């Protein structure tokens, strides 16, 4: 019994930090740029596919380097997209404009990816480390999920500190409140926007790589991941990275526990619990 519960919690937590990671980038764009970035899901997929592509191109290069390269490529893509497209969409007063634009972007990227890489589910082989396990007493933990957990925690702490403690973080937050006044304070608006977009895309890319290592991704899994990201961000109270992590872990545990009772649930109970919490919050006036 204890063993089952411990394993459920461990699996839930390791899946959950992955969910948190999936939501982290969106928390930035949503919370700071005030852009409902519907292309976030496809960025995750792109990250995964870049890593898969790089490893197949250079099978001997160590994984860490592949992750770094993927992150950089995603960041560049994110910044470029922000500069070229989203920035302009943000000048319209109507917030649905950037939302619809990013929706268009996600449709384009999804289909382009399917054209180039095929529509199959793919995963990133990381060799035998993915299959190692660790025994602590009667418990059996996968080594790889444990490493993911630690890695994600480190990334989260770093991002959180950057946003809360540094000058960059201060500018980012100021910008999200009042872009025009921030500009007057010497903040380089477009640059900071692009930096945030790059950071968000980089986080999405990392999430994609982790996802491809643990599970599998297809060009069409963007929608699913976007939904998870949204749920994480909303439950984590907008823009808060710590909240995103906790919400991710919550959803991860819901997912694992619900699958235990109903293996065919897919994401059904995750979605249901999200909607229920949201409605509960709304009813008790927690959403404005």
């Amino acid at each position, binding site marked *: 019994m204890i063993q089952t519960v411990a394993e459920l919690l461990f699996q839930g937590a390791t899946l959950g930090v992955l969910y948190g990671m999936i939501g982290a980038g969106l928390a930035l764009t949503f919370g700071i740029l005030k852009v409902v970035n519907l292309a976030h899901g496809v960025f995750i997929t792109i990250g995964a596919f870049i890593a898969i592509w790089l490893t197949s191109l250079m099978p001997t290069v160590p994984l860490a380097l592949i992750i770094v390269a993927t992150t950089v490529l995603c960041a560049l893509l994110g910044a470029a997209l922000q500069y070229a497209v989203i920035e302009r969409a943000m000048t319209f*007063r109507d917030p*649905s404009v950037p*939302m619809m634009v990013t929706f*268009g972007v996600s449709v*384009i990227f999804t289909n382009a990816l399917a054209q180039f890489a095929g529509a199959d589910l793919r995963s990133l082989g990381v060799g035998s480390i993915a299959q190692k396990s660790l025994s602590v007493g009667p418990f059996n933990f996968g080594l790889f999920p444990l490493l993911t957990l630690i890695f994600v925690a480190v990334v989260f702490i770093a991002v959180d500190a950057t946003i809360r403690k540094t000058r960059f973080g201060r500018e980012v937050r100021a910008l999200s409140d009042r872009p025009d006044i921030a500009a007057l304070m010497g903040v380089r608006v477009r640059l900071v926007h692009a930096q945030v977009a790059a950071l968000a895309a980089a986080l999405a890319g990392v999430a994609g790589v982790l996802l491809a290592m643990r599970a599998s991704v297809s060009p069409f899994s963007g929608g699913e991941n976007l939904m998870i990201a949204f749920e994480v961000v909303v439950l984590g109270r907008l823009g808060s990275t710590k909240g995103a992590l906790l919400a991710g872990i919550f959803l991860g545990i819901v997912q694992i526990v619900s699958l235990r009772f109903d293996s065919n649930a*897919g*994401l059904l109970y995750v979605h249901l619990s999200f909607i229920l919490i949201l409605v509960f919050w709304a009813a008790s006036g927690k959403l404005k």
Partner: protein
Amino acid sequence: MTFKYANLLLIIGFGSLSVVSSLLLSSGMLFLLTEVLVIALLAQMWNLLAGYGGMVSLGQQAFVGLGGYGLYVFANHSGLPVWLWIVVVPLMVGVAALPLGMLMFKLKSAYFSVGMWVAAEILAAIVMRTDALGQSGGLVLRPGGESLAGNPERILFAGAGLLLIGTIVGLRVLLNSDLGLALLAMRDGEEAAEAAGVNVRRTNLLIFCIAAAGCAAGGALYYFSTLYIAPTDAFQINWLISMMFVSVIGGVGTLTGPLLGTAVLIAVRETCTSLGLTGGTYWIIMGTIAIATLLILPRGLWPALRSKLHVPKTEKEATIG
């Protein structure tokens, strides 16, 4: 008064056009054009909700699926004629949307958008798991247990045409009424509208239910023509993408825009088909057109075209701005 006259002209003109063409065109062409009309109808509904109502829903595909499934279930298991159900099912979906709307309107803006998407996903998952609905295998349309004989696409096409015209005229009347004014006001500020005496909740719900019923009608019409329905198809996000792109390209918050957008969509699709391009390429092209429109002419083609051609504004608009 000229306004009423214009509406009448619309009904008579396009109504007879759709009836006449339903008699003249081949059944394959009618199949295609029915889908075109359905997309135009769906786009009008999304546009009503998002463009005029300011409620950007990402879950309208749920109602398309419900319309289709509703038709199949009721027609297959009752002795009543299938044509009756094609009228009744959308109304039922419209009513069924009421509780969902009451739930969803607790969420605002982006929360609403995504909440709708999640709700659609939940619905699709439930249908996919329901034995009576054929699970992932889907259903075949056999009204009263018998295979459907004859060529229904003529009636379907004429019906879709008349429904679309009816919808447009209906929307014109609605938007020029006091309710339309309330709708436009709410888009700029719900609290302000409320403080001005508008019953925001009721208006929102009404629009939501109308849009749900309209999408269900589209779904019922479309899946009537295919005779087979599957959950991964009926609830797919591509329905939503079509509605959204068509509205955005033609002009969100106008009534003519979605029609123009549908024309663009169909032109692109047929060009892609005739050039032998894949579906992916088609979506890439549509996405690019939609983004370009949003960035260059954020109000869409129709408002831009209208001022170029000096066509006077005869409809209430709620364009992006």
